[in-house]
């Protein structure tokens, strides 16, 4: 059974997001993709009755928000379902221990030991108990731990639904980026448990994600449930109006099988970056290896036209390494040769400012929202970059490499704050690529992008390599980058 909703959310007469035919497949699984900022979370929250209506004009199926929140379906799903928020930190109350929060309200009483043991992959309770008796602040469990705590809460509600609710009881479990802070191992464990529960008693699941590699995992490990899974994608029609389209998982799987063109341009393959394998910062020693087992210590060497990929679990120091190379962090010890300039821990930051930034090396930061000036216009974002000043025509040509359709003057005058998350990320990438530095470091460059943009960005990066740029990639998205980068250019950091 399928429910369809027409949802419109506006503020001061400005349409924030509007969609017709937003589907909720009862007792089935829906994966919702789409670039960040397009409205996936807002629409789900509106449907769940979680949006704060203050200052918003919310209409759902031509009825007021108050009417929607009080209808039987909404009341029912709020009583027996769960909404896992995107940012685990904002979900947890810093003034209650995690144990108290795991047993708060309707979660009270239900046994959670089995779920916790599974999500922490431990046979005893001790290590988990140590964690749940903490306050989320100031002890700060890691992002992955907080994420698993939220998932444990959701699973408690799922257990309650399976054990107590009638089969036809409406449900709506929303998981908003539930695997954003998990590595692949824990992500797959979460999916396995969720699908096992679903197989025991179907209920409505909606998973909002940017992680396209989930598709491969489903086709690899949960083939029997594929016919119960819907893949949908939210795409922008115009302004705040969006449409829900089918996403064809086969497109992604086929794309993964298509080899990337490794045939680089005709130029001398000089070494652009050569970093000694041992470096230390903040009192910690790090080593670079060129094999997964961490047996072969190797310098990080990137030549013109190469794409190198640095892999390491969360928190090991991939971004820190990038910031050392870029001279933003001062390492306790390191040594490198960057495009002919020898640098070490004693080098002054002025060298980077005078000789490296924007010309020999550039870096795309992880979060576009934080690394762009949201108050500037699109055009102003590119003003002041090294090299030839871009006039409107040249800039429009550059932008059209990653933006659909004709880039207009209005777009150039648009404030960055008003762009969607995906548009900001593309702008973030282009700002670094435009001056064409010898080495381009990209920290999670595919953050917040839809599949179409992912392909466009990777194609553009490939073109950059063909013209002699060297790329250093840092990303959790192993599946895509292992596909994009040759094995000999993958490095492991510990």
């Amino acid at each position, binding site marked *: 059974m399928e429910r369809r909703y027409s949802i419109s959310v506006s503020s001061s007469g400005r349409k924030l997001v509007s969609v017709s035919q937003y589907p909720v497949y009862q007792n089935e699984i829906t994966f919702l993709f789409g670039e960040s900022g397009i409205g996936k979370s807002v629409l789900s929250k509106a449907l769940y009755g979680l949006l704060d209506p203050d200052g918003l004009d919310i209409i759902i199926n031509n009825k007021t928000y108050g009417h929607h929140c009080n209808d039987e379906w909404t009341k029912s799903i709020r009583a027996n379902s769960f909404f896992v928020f995107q940012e685990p930190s904002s979900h947890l109350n810093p003034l209650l221990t995690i144990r108290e929060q795991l047993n708060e309200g309707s979660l009270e009483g239900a046994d959670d030991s089995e779920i916790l043991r599974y999500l922490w992959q431990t046979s005893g309770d001790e290590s988990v108990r140590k964690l749940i008796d903490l306050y989320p602040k100031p002890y700060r469990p890691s992002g992955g731990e907080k994420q698993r705590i939220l998932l444990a809460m959701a699973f408690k509600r799922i257990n309650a639904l399976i054990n107590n609710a009638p089969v036809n009881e409406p449900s709506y479990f929303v998981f908003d980026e539930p695997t954003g802070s998990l590595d692949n191992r824990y992500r797959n464990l979460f999916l396995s448990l969720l699908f096992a529960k679903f197989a025991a008693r179907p209920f409505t699941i909606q998973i909002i994600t940017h992680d396209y590699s989930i598709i491969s995992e489903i086709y690899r490990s949960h083939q029997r449930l594929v016919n119960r899974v819907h893949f949908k994608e939210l795409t922008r029609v115009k302004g705040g109006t969006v449409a829900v389209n089918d996403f064809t998982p086969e497109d992604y799987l086929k794309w993964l099988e298509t080899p990337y063109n490794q045939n680089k341009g005709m130029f001398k393959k000089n070494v652009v970056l050569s970093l000694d394998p041992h470096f230390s910062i903040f009192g910690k020693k790090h080593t670079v290896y060129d094999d997964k087992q961490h047996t072969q210590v190797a310098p990080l060497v990137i030549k013109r036209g190469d794409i190198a990929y640095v892999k390491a679990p969360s928190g090991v120091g991939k971004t820190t390494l990038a910031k050392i190379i870029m001279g933003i962090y001062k390492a306790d010890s390191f040594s490198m040769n960057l495009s002919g300039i020898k640098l070490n821990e004693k080098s002054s930051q002025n060298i980077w400012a005078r000789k490296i930034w924007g010309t020999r090396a550039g870096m795309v930061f992880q979060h576009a929202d*934080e690394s762009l000036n949201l108050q500037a216009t699109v055009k102003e974002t590119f003003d002041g970059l090294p090299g030839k000043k871009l006039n409107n025509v040249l800039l429009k040509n550059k932008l059209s490499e990653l933006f659909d359709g004709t880039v207009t003057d209005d777009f150039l005058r648009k404030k960055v704050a008003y762009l969607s998350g995906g548009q900001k990320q593309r702008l*973030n990438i282009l*700002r670094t690529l435009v001056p064409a530095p010898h080495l381009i470091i990209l920290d999670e460059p595919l953050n917040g992008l839809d599949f179409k943009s992912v392909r466009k960005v990777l194609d553009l990066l490939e073109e950059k390599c063909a013209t002699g740029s060297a790329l250093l990639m840092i990303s959790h998205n192993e599946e895509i980058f292992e596909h994009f980068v040759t094995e000999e250019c993958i490095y492991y950091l510990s």
Partner: protein
Amino acid sequence: MKTDTNFFSRLYNSKDQLWTLIWITGILSLGIWDMVFLNKPAFNKVITGFFNTFTIAFIVAVFTLFLGWMITIALNFTERMKNRVPFLMLMFFLNIIRSVPQIVGVLIAYVIIAQAATRGTFKSGFTIFPAMGIAMSLFIVIELVDLMRERIDHFKKLDFYNAMRVCGISESRIINFHILWKNSRLHIFNKLISIFGSAVFLQCSVDFIISVGLSSDVNSVMLPSTLGSLLAKIDSKQDILAIGSIFTNPSYITNLFTLHLQGITVAFLIVFSLYCVYAISNGFAERHRL
């Protein structure tokens, strides 16, 4: 009809615009009343005092902006230099200024200006205005420098700053354009509104002190007439004292608005303007969520 409702509702929600309108309306209404009931020489004095006070306050705001921006940039660039002497020297002078109470600093500066005026240093009456504005700015500018440095420090902690630097955008452009102009101009403008209010207050206080006779060496006649100096005149003082008489003789209240207008007008202009500037500044901060 709908447009009218929208206009008033918008005005009600934009408290800064509402208070600007209230201020202008109040001043104009008072002006019309004074035209009718105040004698012409006194009316001219009030107009001159009002014009001088607010002109100097405006000059203070403009010059503070200019000086504050320069000092902030100088601090930012000297702070990163290997040679710490220029930064420490600059901080030393700023801390000396910070240690002097504003009113004392402005008073001393005005005494010096008045003495210079007595000696004929200022060729025309108008050259004394910038001198007074600049003197006052020196003791107010620290407030603006602190705000601008806070804004720069805040943005330097964000990825925003480093992300731009590694793209090759110059530090000067990031600080001046991206941080101060694009992300802080509303904060700076709001601070300038309060600096304008402070300048009016300081101007009136210092002129009042000088006019009632700070020193026999200083002749306040050489300084432009302001609301503060008008308030110190014997006529105005008598008008203010008349307010007290209404407690013993309530029927006298009507005379306040016809017979004692000079003092009452000057006092009202100062208090009403300061309150309006305060409300405008708060409303502006509220409207822009500063």
